[in-house]
């Protein structure tokens, strides 16, 4: 990153912007009339420059980028302003002109590697048709070369495979290969790695950076992650509700955010300001103990959990799945392998791992939804595998889950009252009036208005649904809550809110959390203890500070290094 000593060369002054967006307005036709999605958007990309647009979902960041390549959805249109490519306004260019430009002048790397490759064509064909459409040599050797450049090993053989034979990371490499195959001058990368594991994400972004630097390609990077944007881009543009609220050099924007929204974003970004919520949590504990905030050193609070007993003990837990491999044969797949750890009452233990690490399988077994192959789960001194049906029913009152997908965790047919009341009704607690009273209390606890009771899940936002899910989990006054990626699908600011809520509830109700997540930045904000899992095995465990400050294993180090923006130094008044 360049900081204060910005040198201005003659050549740079002379060159013209590659892409210039001026006062762009985009609107969508919906059932209830025309809705403006983007207003007064402006940004400039110089040749070879990397510019990131940062914003939460619905901020208009993707819409702006799609307009630049003429790919707005059918109901969307540019209703004002200009998109200048080399000085040519392409905001209303005929489709023929856009086809000329796409591929060899403007390339695109899309978001989700799972859905962006056509499942019925071989990878090689999908590269080949790109080359051919842009008038480039498209023989098998050319295809293999393009794939190899994107870091795909054994490219010649890989070209003959179908997308479903590729892992997520490999698919994304194939998509990068396609996006850059015709050496475009501008690459639009729309959340190119948000669907991937952090370590893969880092490799792919590194590779993308090297390739675009070699080709001199300018990049328009769309992301929700401020840390990632700051780390990868020369310039960051922050969008909020369809408008650009702030734009400037990456580091300057982070260190000295001017607009209140940017300030809020910088303060909440888990990758940057991880300790902040941790402090907020301690403040909660302290204020309960009627201590003056900010006076107690951090260590003083951590003493408390060590005095309490283990509420959960996981001993040599193992889970083997039988995978059918055709003709009655089956192969064993060990999802969880000899995992042991314990959870102290009133604390938060995080299980961190990438996809396939077995962390969610552990959660399922702790919830008694899945039987372990071997090993024990001891809850409050009792081995949970020995429980009979009646005891399991009682056990369920004490251990409750919160799941990841805010759109899947609530029954769309049930209104919020019925959703939160269901556990009470199932366990035959109270009468109708007392249950309603309890639901109202629970809604208060999760900071939702009581009028939410009559609403249906589809009327709520993701964060609100997660709050309802928390209220449902709390209805039975449980002791342990298993949060399976409970905040992973939420926007940064909403995520911070929900994490705060969880921390506050913990200090108020003495809850124990088992927090399953792939996001180390979130771990730092909420957990007291960390268990790192890799391919079914527990590779490292310790207190959060130990693991973050002095990781022992290479895998943990790699995970920590992969947190976007982790290496950026922030001034103390922000962090």
């Amino acid at each position, binding site marked *: 990153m360049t900081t204060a000593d910005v040198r201005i060369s003659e050549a740079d002054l002379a060159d013209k912007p590659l892409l210039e967006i001026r006062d762009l307005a985009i609107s969508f036709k919906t059932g209830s009339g025309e809705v403006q999605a983007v207003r007064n958007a402006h940004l400039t990309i110089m040749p070879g420059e990397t510019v990131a647009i940062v914003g939460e979902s619905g901020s208009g960041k993707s819409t702006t980028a799609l307009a630049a390549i003429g790919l707005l959805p059918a109901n969307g249109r540019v209703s004002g302003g200009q998109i200048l490519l080399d000085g040519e306004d392409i905001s209303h260019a005929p489709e023929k002109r856009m086809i000329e430009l796409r591929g060899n002048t403007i390339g695109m790397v899309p978001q989700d590697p799972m859905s962006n490759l056509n499942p019925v064509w071989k990878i090689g064909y999908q590269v080949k048709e790109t080359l051919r459409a842009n008038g480039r040599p498209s023989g098998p050797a050319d295809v293999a070369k393009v794939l190899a450049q994107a870091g795909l090993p054994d490219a010649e053989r890989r070209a003959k495979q179908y997308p479903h034979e590729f892992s997520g990371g490999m698919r994304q490499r194939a998509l990068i290969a396609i996006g850059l195959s015709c050496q475009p001058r501008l690459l639009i990368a729309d959340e190119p790695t948000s669907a991937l594991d952090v370590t893969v994400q880092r490799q792919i972004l590194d590779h993308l950076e090297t390739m675009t630097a070699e080709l001199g390609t300018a990049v328009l990077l769309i992301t929700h992650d401020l840390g990632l944007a700051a780390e990868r881009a020369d310039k960051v543009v922050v969008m909020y509700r369809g408008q650009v609220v702030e734009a400037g050099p990456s580091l300057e924007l982070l260190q000295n955010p001017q607009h209140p929204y940017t300030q809020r974003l910088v303060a909440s970004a888990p990758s940057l300001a991880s300790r902040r919520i941790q402090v907020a949590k301690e403040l909660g504990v302290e204020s309960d103990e009627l201590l003056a905030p900010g006076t107690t050193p951090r260590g003083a609070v951590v003493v408390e959990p060590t005095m309490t007993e283990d509420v959960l003990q996981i001993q040599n837990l193992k889970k083997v799945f039988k995978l059918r491999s055709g003709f009655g044969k089956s192969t064993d797949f060990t999802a969880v392998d000899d995992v042991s750890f314990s959870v102290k009452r009133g604390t938060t233990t995080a299980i961190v791992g990438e996809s396939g690490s077995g962390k969610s399988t552990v959660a399922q077994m702790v919830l008694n939804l899945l039987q372990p192959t071997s090993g024990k789960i001891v809850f409050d001194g009792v081995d949970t595998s020995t429980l009979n049906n009646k005891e399991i029913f009682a056990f*369920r009152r004490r251990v409750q889950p919160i799941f990841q997908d805010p759109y899947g965790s609530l029954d*769309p047919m049930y209104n919020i009252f019925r959703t939160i009341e269901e556990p009470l009704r*199932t366990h035959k607690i109270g009468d109708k009036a007392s249950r309603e009273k309890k639901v109202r209390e629970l809604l208060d606890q999760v900071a939702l208005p009581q009028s939410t009771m009559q609403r249906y899940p589809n009327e709520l936002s993701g964060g609100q649904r997660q709050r309802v899910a928390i209220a449902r989990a709390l209805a039975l006054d449980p002791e342990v809550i298993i949060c399976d990626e409970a905040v992973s699908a939420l926007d940064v600011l909403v995520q911070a809110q929900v994490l705060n809520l969880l921390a506050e509830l913990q200090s108020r109700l003495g809850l124990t959390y088992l927090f399953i997540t792939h996001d180390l930045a979130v771990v730092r904000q909420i957990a007291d203890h960390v268990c790192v899992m890799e391919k079914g095995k527990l590779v490292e465990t310790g207190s959060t500070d130990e693991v973050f400050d002095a990781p022992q294993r290479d895998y943990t180090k790699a995970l920590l290094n992969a947190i976007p923006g982790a290496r950026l130094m922030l001034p103390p008044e922000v962090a």
Partner: protein
Amino acid sequence: MKTNRVIEHFVAPVEETPLLATDSLKTDQAPLSLWADAWRKLRRRPLFIISAVMIALIIIVALFPGLFTQVAPNDNCQLANSDGAPAAGHPLGFTFQGCDVYSRIIHGTQASLMVGVFSVIFVLIIGVTLGALAGFYGGWIDSVIARLGDIFFALPLILGALVVSQLPFMRENRGVWTVVMVLVVLGWPQMARITRGAVIEVRNADFVTAARSLGVSRIGSLIRHVLPNALAPIIVLATMELGVFIVAEATLSFIGIGLPGSIMSWGNDIAAAKSSVRTNPAILLYPAMALSVTVLSFIMLGDALRDALDPKSRQR
């Protein structure tokens, strides 16, 4: 290090980009359940209104044919009137046997509708039960039900009906119930397949797991959470199948293995009219139109329901 250009730091005026509270609840609309939302959408669809009115009318005709015609369908059939043109009190003319066409159409509604409605009810009972069990429990239950369905599926409707109708029992008791039996035996696998697919789509949803982990039993979560969410495609198929079964009954009657001639039905009237189709096509066309309009009403209703219940078209 990537560039040495000067990058301007822009900040939008706060007045123009006011900051809203994060994640505030929208409270400007009344709460809407899925069904209320579907109903709101349906109300505005001409396809739905037309088909609903038609179906209501058809049901009234089937229940109270006497309201629509004073002429008894089978009495006073005089061969002198054979293939006769419309006359006073006989707006659609006479059949080959000299019976009143209009009256026969009105009185034939009941049999067609009964076959359709009862076939669908039984297909729903069998198909939804088996499909839901197969989809929800999976494993060997699924395999057995799937193979069973495949076996019946390999017997195309009309061919299967031909075989079943050869059974002495079926031949001796021909009537509404034997036709219903044929259609149910051959029609349930389709419903089971759709139900199975819809149940599989829902069964792994987090809200089902959540219900299980708060103590709801397996079967309880199937009934209270999975099935209600799998209902939309089932309702759509049932509505459409009502139409399809009415066509099937008419086709079977036309071939001669459906309703016996003693039961008045559109299929039988069309079959009876085929001998005089070149000389007097009208007596074939009128019952055919009644049949087609009825079927069309149900299929249009199903189509409108499909659009209204489509989860993809839900707000947000």
